[in-house]
């Protein structure tokens, strides 16, 4: 038991530091490809944190969806655009200020919402990240929001196709 908690502490600190490094790298890298790769590092670290909490399903989905699909698409677009290094100077205007305030408000809100989960013992019973509880929750208690999200996603997809289509019609 003692050894298990030590390993978990080591894992926690490793993945936390790596995850934060990834997040900072995303924000401060001038090169878009490196910024995207920093985000991939961050996703992997968070997956590692999930794993060390026993939430294997969440970890796998994190890698599969974010690192494997979304970030590959991001890289694809970055490469297609052949972006140069960002040379802009950091300025502080009203929009940035508003973004900062909203960002802090969002973090504060998250902290309030997640307060109940705060004092969770690492390595204790952590069951809500496994397949069964997630599946059960999605198909019973949260069935309606779940289906609504699907509809919103489909609408977004169809909208994207429509926008892309109209564009080609005008050209040709």
């Amino acid at each position: 038991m003692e050894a298990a908690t030590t390993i978990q502490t080591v894992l926690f600190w490793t993945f936390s530091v790596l995850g934060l490094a990834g997040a900072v790298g995303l924000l401060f890298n001038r090169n878009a490809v490196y910024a995207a790769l920093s985000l991939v590092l961050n996703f992997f670290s968070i997956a590692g944190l999930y794993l060390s909490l026993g939430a294997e399903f969440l970890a796998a989905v994190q890698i599969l969806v974010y690192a494997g699909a979304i970030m590959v698409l991001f890289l694809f677009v970055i490469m297609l655009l052949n972006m140069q290094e960002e040379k802009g100077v950091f300025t502080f205007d009203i929009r940035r200020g508003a973004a900062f305030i909203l960002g802090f408000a969002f973090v504060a809100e998250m902290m309030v919402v997640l307060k109940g989960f705060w004092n969770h013992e690492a390595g204790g019973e952590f069951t809500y990240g496994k397949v069964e509880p997630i599946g059960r929750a999605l198909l019973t208690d949260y069935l309606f929001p779940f289906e609504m999200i699907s509809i919103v996603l489909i609408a977004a997809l169809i909208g994207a196709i429509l926008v892309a289509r109209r564009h080609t019609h005008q050209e040709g």
Partner: protein
Amino acid sequence: MELYSQILLIFPVLLVLITLAAYGSYAERRVAAAFQQRVGPNRVGPFGLLQPLADVLKLMIKEDVTPANADKLLHFLSPIISVATAMIMFGVIPLAKFGDSFLVISDVNIGILYLLGVTSVSVYGITLAGWASNGKYSLLGGLRASAQMISYELPLGLAVVSVIILTNARMPMGSDFLSVTSIVEAQRGAWNLFINPLGFIIFYICVLAESARTPFDLVEAEQELVGGFHTEYSSLKFGMFMVVEFLHLVIPPAIITTVFLGGYLGPFEGALGVAQWGNTAQILWGLGWFLTKTFTIAFTFMWIRWTLPRFKYNQLMDLGWKRLLPLALINLVVVAIGAAIYVFQTAG
């Protein structure tokens, strides 16, 4: 104790994988020669069996060139990412069963998702190699790779979901239906190939596409792109991409074997009483069947490579999005209904 035996298993498995990859190159060239009525490599050692060693030696003494405008770090890292992502896939594939335990490096309870995840991450190696080389042929190869992998991941994932549904229906309640060992165990009696043939075809095509083998090898189409994503690579870095290419002759067939051909399961296991045999006999039996099936699938990979011409890019996208994806969706619904009927019948 469990942990140490797993770690001990890693090294022999890696050694065997590297050897198989090396002899994959030999087999590929001999088989290609046979298809084209040539002899193939037969000069180095008896039957040319030392040819892979000679190839590696040749690559090792070549000069390692990095293009002047390349991104040095990523140019260095991407072959490593490629080899690593190809190799770690083998970690969850069970090679044999003895008593109640499995010969597997790690029987993760989300094993099949792990396989899908590593597959989707493996594209980084190729894409980054293409971008970091800073050349137009490389970049085009890398772009093609990422578009192709993302397109074929969808039908691949749907085919896997149909297998997961079948596994869940055939295994006792409460077992880990996402682990690779239960996917194999559920195939006792009838392989998924026979229950879910359409799923098998979709899965096979998608695996072929994900490993970028002919007819899906647009990422390195030599007539258009020189060498594709590895145009600017030389020496052992190029060698690492070659290792990946020939690992793709071992690992994807092993995955197909595991998911659809019953993995280590042999025929007539019940009649022969395999479960009562000694551990060594059981391991040899399982390993033997696993390797036989894997090599058979690998041979079909080579067969296809030397029979079919390469797709055009629009044909590739057509096949993925307009044919395989709808087919996979229909197959998923049919399998789900069938599994539901099966479960109701056995329960009631």
